[in-house]
């Protein structure tokens, strides 16, 4: 637009920008990305649900029969794997919080000039492949690997102790892999807290513990919510740690879904399992969000 532009409005110009912008602009901006998500996120979810109520095989094709057989199989045969997912994922989330909170707190409030360096160290694991890190844990936790040899030399563990293949190894792997996902949101929330609020609590005769419990923790809730969600959800669906560090006894629901889809070609049951997992997570997340009173965080 190089021609003589219309005389510009003087004074408060707040709404004028928006007035000049065509009403269609936001929709044009949204359209390509939203379309992508509709076609490659929403539509597949619908397709997965339809697959879960179909019968048939990969070779002969699937026919929509609205059969609930896959759900019956999923809910009756795979209890132990669902249980493993819940226990391993839950324990790992709790551990990442117990380890992550003091770390995030220290970096946010005591980091000083080391703040950026410490944060960099926290995200450093992201610079290597998740698979390779998990393989490194296997090297570390092998029966004659460095960790067990060391603990045996200290007589903390008996000579025949073994970690690889046990739930402990799987939980350790999950905790390791998702720890930065807990630390970062906690740090962001804690970093935002104005220290003068805590000082004010102290001035008003709150004990240090009281100020921590009644000022710091409530203000950190958005971070706690984000951190636990970012850890728990991928942990529930993880199967790589269970394959690399576990044994057939430590299978999680992800292992079943993966093998049914990619090895056995049993799509209906695999789709039903995925769908149940997704539904359970959505229900759990909404209950959790309501319990913490942080619904606005999702926006």
């Amino acid at each position: 637009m190089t021609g003589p532009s219309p005389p510009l409005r003087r004074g408060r110009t707040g709404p004028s920008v928006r007035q000049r912008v065509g009403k269609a602009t936001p929709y044009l901006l949204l359209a390509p990305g939203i379309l992508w998500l509709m076609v490659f996120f929403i539509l597949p979810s619908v397709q997965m649900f339809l697959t879960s109520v179909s019968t048939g095989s990969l070779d002969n094709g699937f026919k929509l029969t609205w059969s609930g057989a896959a759900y019956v199989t999923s809910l009756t045969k795979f209890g132990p794997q669902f249980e493993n997912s819940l226990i391993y994922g839950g324990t790992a989330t709790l551990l990442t919080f117990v380890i992550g909170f003091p770390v995030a707190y220290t970096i946010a409030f005591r980091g000083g000039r080391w703040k950026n360096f410490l944060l960099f160290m926290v995200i450093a694991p992201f610079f290597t492949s998740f698979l390779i890190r998990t393989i490194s844990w296997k090297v570390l936790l092998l029966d004659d690997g460095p960790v067990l040899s060391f603990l045996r030399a200290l007589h903390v563990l008996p000579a025949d102790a073994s970690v690889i293949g046990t739930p402990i190894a799987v939980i350790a792997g999950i905790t390791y892999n998702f720890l930065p996902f807990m630390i970062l949101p906690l740090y962001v929330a804690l970093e935002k807290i104005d220290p003068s609020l805590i000082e004010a609590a102290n001035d008003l005769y709150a004990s240090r513990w009281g100020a921590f419990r009644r000022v710091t923790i409530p203000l950190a809730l958005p971070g706690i919510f984000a951190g636990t969600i970012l850890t728990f959800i991928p942990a529930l669906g993880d199967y790589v740690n269970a394959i690399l560090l576990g044994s057939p006894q430590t299978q999680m629901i992800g292992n079943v879904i993966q093998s049914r889809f990619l090895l056995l070609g049993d799509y209906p049951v695999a789709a039903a399992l995925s769908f149940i997992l997704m539904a359970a997570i959505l229900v759990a997340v909404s209950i959790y969000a309501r319990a913490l009173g942080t619904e606005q965080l999702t926006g």
Partner: protein
Amino acid sequence: MTALSQPVADVPVKAASRRPPRRIFHTIDHWALPGFTLLAIGYLLIPIVVMIIFSFNDYQGKFNFVWHGFTLQGWLHPFDWPGLPDAIKTSLLIAVLSTVGSTILGTFIGLALTRYNFRGRGAINGLIFLPMATPEIVMGSSLLTLFVNSGLQGGMLNGIVPKGVLFPLGFTTILIAHIMFNISYVVVTVKARIAGFDRRLEEAAMDLGADELTTFWKVTFPLIFPGVLAAGLLAFSLSIDDFIITSFVSGTTNTFPIWVYSVIKNALPVQINVVGSMVFLGAVLIVGLSNIRQARANR
């Protein structure tokens, strides 16, 4: 990791019984919290150190699990394993293309959500949040059902999408999936940047006669560029490291993580450690250099 946390957790408890309260907090602040943070960061870095050390291992047999002595053989022949060069090329190409695609789509959505008022904002926010709250295994498996279905008679996309595009699985389906899961992360990152943006700068530009496009390229874009860049880097790193979703939609095409996973069943070549170390050191170098440059620019 419980073993790691115990000695530190003991400190405040023991101190509590002997010292007056103020000293406890001093101990926690000055010794326990920093000490714990360093231990936790050590925990995060251990597998990376192992990866780098074992890239110099003169291992015997097929598996690079046990230390046998120092050699540079791995670093002299970093890509010397069947399938590895192709896998790296595919990974890089997918990462670049999906970063460009998702950054454009996601930035548009981020702009629309922060700059305009329109109906359905809540639904759009929800649609952006959902992929981040969905376990990768669910997204991967639902995409698989859609892609396979498009190849079957009577499938949902059968007839709409030309045959051979979505099924058999391969490069295109991996790219589609990576753009899909990256969009949400780009939107969130860009939104965070635009939120702290002084809109009066745009209004000033328009008041001075700039049209909308000029305002966007001369004022808006330079201001949000750091956010767009951060989003792009995040998308790149998510894409290049993705294993779970890719494993469902890759068919016979190998990305680096898929290649690693397929190889480690029968062997653990030192090249895995070498490439992993290269990526890690390269990323550290890039981040380090950009930090130094920024520090200089700020001076």
